[in-house]
């Protein structure tokens, strides 16, 4: 029940993301050729109307294919958008076509042909469009299917190309693959819509000017590029997970990594990332209290965790054969997910996974988490010793979570007075109000 409620909340929260699908750049849809002569009857559905599910899932395919064929990112996005708008207008009255994806692809392709024909340029592109197999005529043709799948992969790798700035990669992925309106992306990244528009335009211009290829790298290049793609998805996910983030981004990140996992089977780190997302996302309903404040792991109502997501995460993790950085993080998350409480958590296992993670991808934050895990597994003194090691060189200076960890370990070691003072110092360095309040509460609990 709890997870059903969470699902409903998640859906409600994505409404503003989905609704602008009916916002269309350019003039009204005017299908050329096969689209048929449709009158102007019936305005576009209200902004609250959800797109038909097949339309949502088809969008990335349409955009990806039209980019490959026309090389024009904006045209591809606009035509996909128009096809979705037509679906919203026509399907309720005419019924959903037998092959919705094919119908949408045809409408989008006809629109692109129309635009290019009217522009009376780019004869080569027109020729290629004309040569593209008519999707409606061959529903589910295996050859066509494979090509479409390839295009989405190409799009992911191009959006996540390292020659683009990291923030541009994330924005381009959200805009082009997920179809999230620029205004919503801008809001999530705390910039104005015009700034985000410029950022996206600059990225598309660089792709064209520097000739960033529309291709999935092969051989050793794939191994080099895949971590960069996964890093973008990870950033996207955490952006949905952050206190002030956009919750729908987490769902988009999961959709994308699911797609990658399906398209590139046998890549351990992709499966591991999917498992990691599923475990973290399983706690979404328990992470906040009624007031919206963050609830730390040890105080979460574990009955509210999404146990279906946990089960799926465990199944996905079962396919992982190599322990890369995401696999190690997923194993840590799986261990937490398997425990009924903090006390019954297999902390020695978690400490060991952190040892492996610290050896593989050393960073101050990993070192901090490793110290905390060892503190639970082997006592506060062991944790404090590793914490001192993690802090050597000043890497964690001023980092409130390091102070909070020291405070927690000190409290469990029995020095309540010192622990309370440390919690107050951590609170003074914390900007997010709910976290700050939680730290002050811990301090007050320790006061005599």
């Amino acid at each position: 029940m709890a997870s059903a409620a969470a699902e409903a909340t998640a859906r409600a929260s994505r409404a503003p993301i989905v609704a602008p699908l009916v916002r269309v750049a350019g003039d009204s849809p005017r299908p050329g050729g096969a689209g048929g002569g449709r009158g102007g009857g019936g305005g576009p559905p209200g902004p609250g109307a959800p797109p038909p599910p097949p339309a949502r899932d088809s969008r990335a395919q349409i955009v990806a294919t039209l980019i490959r064929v026309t090389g024009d990112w904006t045209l591809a996005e606009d035509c996909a958008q128009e096809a979705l708008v037509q679906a919203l207008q026509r399907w309720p009255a005419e019924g959903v076509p037998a092959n919705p994806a094919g119908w949408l692809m045809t409408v989008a392709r006809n629109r692109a042909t129309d635009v290019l024909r009217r522009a009376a340029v780019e004869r080569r592109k027109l020729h290629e469009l004309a040569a593209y197999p008519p999707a409606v005529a061959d529903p589910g043709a295996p050859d066509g299917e494979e090509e479409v799948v390839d295009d989405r992969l190409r799009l992911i790798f191009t959006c996540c190309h390292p020659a683009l700035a990291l923030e541009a990669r994330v924005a381009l992925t959200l805009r082009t693959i997920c179809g999230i309106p620029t205004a919503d992306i801008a809001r999530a990244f705390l910039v104005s819509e015009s700034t985000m528009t410029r950022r996206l335009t600059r990225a598309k211009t660089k792709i064209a000017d520097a000739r960033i290829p529309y291709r999935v790298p092969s051989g050793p290049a794939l191994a080099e590029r895949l971590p960069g793609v996964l890093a973008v998805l990870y950033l996207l996910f955490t952006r949905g997970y952050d206190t002030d983030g956009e919750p729908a981004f987490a769902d988009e990140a999961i959709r994308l990594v699911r797609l990658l996992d399906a398209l590139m089977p046998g890549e351990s780190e992709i499966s591991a990332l999917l498992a990691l997302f599923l475990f973290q996302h399983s706690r979404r309903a328990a992470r906040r209290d009624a007031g919206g404040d963050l609830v730390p792991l040890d105080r979460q109502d574990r009955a509210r965790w999404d146990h279906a997501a946990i089960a799926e995460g465990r199944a996905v993790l079962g396919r992982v054969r190599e322990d890369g950085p995401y696999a190690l993080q997923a194993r840590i998350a799986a261990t937490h997910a398997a425990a009924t409480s903090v006390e019954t958590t297999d902390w020695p296992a978690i400490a060991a996974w952190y040892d492996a993670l610290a050896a593989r991808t050393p960073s101050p934050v990993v070192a901090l988490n490793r110290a905390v895990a060892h503190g639970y597994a082997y006592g506060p003194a062991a944790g404090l010793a590793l914490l001192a090691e993690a802090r050597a060189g000043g890497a964690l200076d001023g980092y409130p979570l390091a102070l909070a960890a020291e405070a927690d370990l000190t409290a469990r070691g029995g020095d309540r007075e010192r622990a309370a003072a440390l919690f107050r110092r951590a609170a003074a360095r914390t900007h997010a109000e709910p976290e700050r309040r939680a730290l002050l509460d811990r301090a007050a609990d320790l006061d005599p």
Partner: protein
Amino acid sequence: MKYMMFVCTDTEPDTDKTPEPDIEAWVTENDANGRRLDGHELAPVSAATTVRVRGGELLVSDGPFAETKEVVVGFDLLECADLDEAIEVARTHPMARAGRIELRPFADLG
């Protein structure tokens, strides 16, 4: 697609001790496969001269002497299918480790 490859020094060169690739071999290979059209090492910046015309007047000066230690020490003109191919050419240049390489595509004037 033509890319101008600026070969630059960098304040933080690679600390990896394995020997750097040989520049002669790099030139020979990329000349042979048609990806390198031209290129040369440049004389030090102490030999640089700046020319400007302002209001019809010719202004010639010594330099510029870059404030930083990151300066262009050579160039290669590449002909590659796309950026990924140019990156593959650049990565095997010895200065990718001893310094850094900047890839600038030719502007599309078509």
